[in-house]
């Protein structure tokens, strides 16, 4: 399959596909970060995660429309406000969902899966009723259009670079919150031993609620970033949910580093294969490889060594 290309062409192909893979990687990482917190830390399977992401995307879309109508002068900067709004909208919805639904189900992980799936169906229909069944796309500000020419045969789009930069920042932020802050320490304490954490005076119910809300909020930011590279419809979230779960499981559920490594390897494999075969076969091969590796190594790439 390499026969028709010269060495230089192949190099460019790999770089360009590698870059396309990096954008996919950013989406995976952003979605998986929230999920890694909710699933990896709390053990809750949130099948509605994609819908929290789409909420962020719709918030971004509404903000861009608002700016276009009322504040056209500030349009080039709307995205930063939209991201913050998306974080709080998804986070607030997450907090509500935790209070109404999830907190009753911590002891029954398989049942959270069914309940959140029901939630995702309801949210999808709500989006369809409110925003319409058609996909919506945001208008990008001028400075995000176009692409950077690296060499003669290699070009990278600016919005892609922006999304990647954003991903790096958010990842660092999450790592800081989880591993450096006092609150992150409380979260990890509750995860490791709920009863003892409660005994030393941590309000575990509150920690649970805010952890879930943080995970959902990050999903909202992911959705916000998602609007930079694709359009949003009521069911867009569902397309990514299985991939994202695989990313988290493949990385080793409790490990943040593992999540990033697995998002990287999955997205790179997929986008490189995509150049040589049809998109669907590339996806099938990638997913098969992941499932195969998981059968050989069920604990994922980076497993914490814990005694059960």
């Amino acid at each position: 399959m390499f026969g028709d290309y010269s060495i230089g062409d192949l190099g460019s192909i790999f770089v360009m596909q590698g870059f396309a893979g990096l954008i996919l990687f950013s989406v995976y990482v952003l979605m998986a970060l929230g999920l890694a917190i909710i699933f990896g830390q709390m053990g809750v399977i949130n099948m509605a995660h994609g819908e929290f992401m789409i909420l962020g995307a719709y918030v971004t879309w509404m903000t861009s429309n608002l700016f276009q109508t009322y504040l056209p002068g500030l349009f080039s900067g709307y995205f930063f406000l939209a991201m913050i709004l998306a974080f709080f909208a998804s986070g607030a919805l997450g907090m509500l969902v935790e209070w109404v639904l999830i907190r009753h189900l911590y002891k029954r992980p398989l049942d959270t899966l069914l309940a959140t799936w029901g939630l995702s169906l309801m949210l999808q229909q709500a989006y369809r009723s409110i925003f319409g069944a058609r996909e919506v796309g945001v208008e990008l500000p001028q400075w995000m259009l176009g692409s950077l020419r690296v060499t003669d045969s290699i070009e990278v789009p600016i919005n892609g670079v922006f999304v990647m930069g954003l991903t790096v920042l958010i990842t660092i932020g999450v790592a800081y919150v989880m591993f450096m802050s006092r609150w992150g320490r409380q979260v990890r304490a509750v995860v490791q031993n709920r009863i003892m954490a409660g005994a030393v005076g941590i309000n575990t119910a509150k920690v649970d609620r805010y952890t879930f809300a943080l995970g959902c909020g990050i999903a909202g930011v992911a959705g916000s970033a998602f609007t930079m590279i694709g359009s949003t419809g009521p069911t867009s979230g569902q397309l990514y949910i299985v991939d994202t779960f695989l990313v988290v499981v493949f990385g080793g559920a409790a490990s943040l580093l593992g999540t990033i490594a697995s998002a990287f390897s999955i997205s790179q494999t997929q986008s490189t294969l995509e150049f040589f075969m049809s998109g669907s076969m590339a996806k099938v091969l990638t997913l098969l490889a992941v499932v195969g590796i998981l059968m050989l190594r069920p604990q994922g790439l980076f497993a914490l060594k814990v005694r059960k």
Partner: protein
Amino acid sequence: MNDSRFTSRSELIGILVLAVFLVVILPLCLDVFRLNLVAKYLTYAFVALGLVICWGYGGILSLGQGVFFGLGGYCMAMFLKLEASSVENTKIQSTPGIPDFMDWNQITALPFFWKPFHSLTFTIAAVILVPGIFALVIGAAMFKRRVGGTYFAIITQAVAAILTILIVGQQGYTGGINGMTDLRTLKGWDIRPDHAKIVLYFFEVGLLFACIFVAQFVRHSKLGRILVAMRDQEDRVRFSGYSVANFKIFAFCIAAIFAAIGGAMFALNVGFMSPSFVGIVPSIEMVIYTAVGGRLSILGAVYGTILVNFAKTSLSESFPELWLFGLGGLFIAVVLAFPNGLAGIWGDYVQPRISRFIGVRKPKAGWTDNSVADGAPAE
């Protein structure tokens, strides 16, 4: 309650009531079109039945039952499609004698894995064996390594996604997104007219009862009790010297085979098979049928399937907007408020009243030896 018997008296009455309902009442009350709809619902009841064994008793939630439903359905559909694409029927194609979608995709010879499906015997064997062996491989790979619970659910879901993408992508070999349509005859017997639909309905009900009896047998045997023990305290069963993995594999395979029989009946009754019954969404919907019926109740699964599908058909006919809200609400309500489903409501509220009304004194309230809400499966 004496569990060692094959069925207790109340269960026998339940089975009889279901039999009267399906064999006498429904065919008398419904026209052929509606009866065919019930036949379609009942194909899902096979899946729900398997999930009672696998999920309710074994504690293994599989979100990939659509895979087995689809494999069984596709095996059957391949046979029917080959029969429908005889050389006389496909004269206008550039290559006569192969299915129409292959011709559209510039395939000129029948692929090798299609050839054995000329034989009905092989097809029936394949309906059982292909999904069975597939389940065996997945089950052995996962359970031997002690992967279970949520991880297993996610991986089966990924398998469902993979198979759907594969079927849709390989249009020339599988019919792609449209699936296999225009299935006509079974060994020269036309499956499309009304009387054939009625015959197929009764045949399906017969098969369903065969599966119900198998499920009853599993449940009341020592095997069924080990499954329950394993669901509640896996480690203790392992320490007692049982091979937990083998029992799980068995439950998973039984569920897969039931689902495959359902799929094959679907292809016969509905006359087509498509990837929209294989993927993640249908697979998870099949779980909700079981959950609504009561994940521990074999008969409940059948009623749950009929009820949810009936609600789906009538709601989505008249209020398409409301259906997804209804289905979503159903998921949440069943999980939060009625973890034992219809069977739980029946056992907790209806049956005691009936007994009091007739004047029979029940020895004890409660409907089975175990319920889901408090004895949640241990991870």
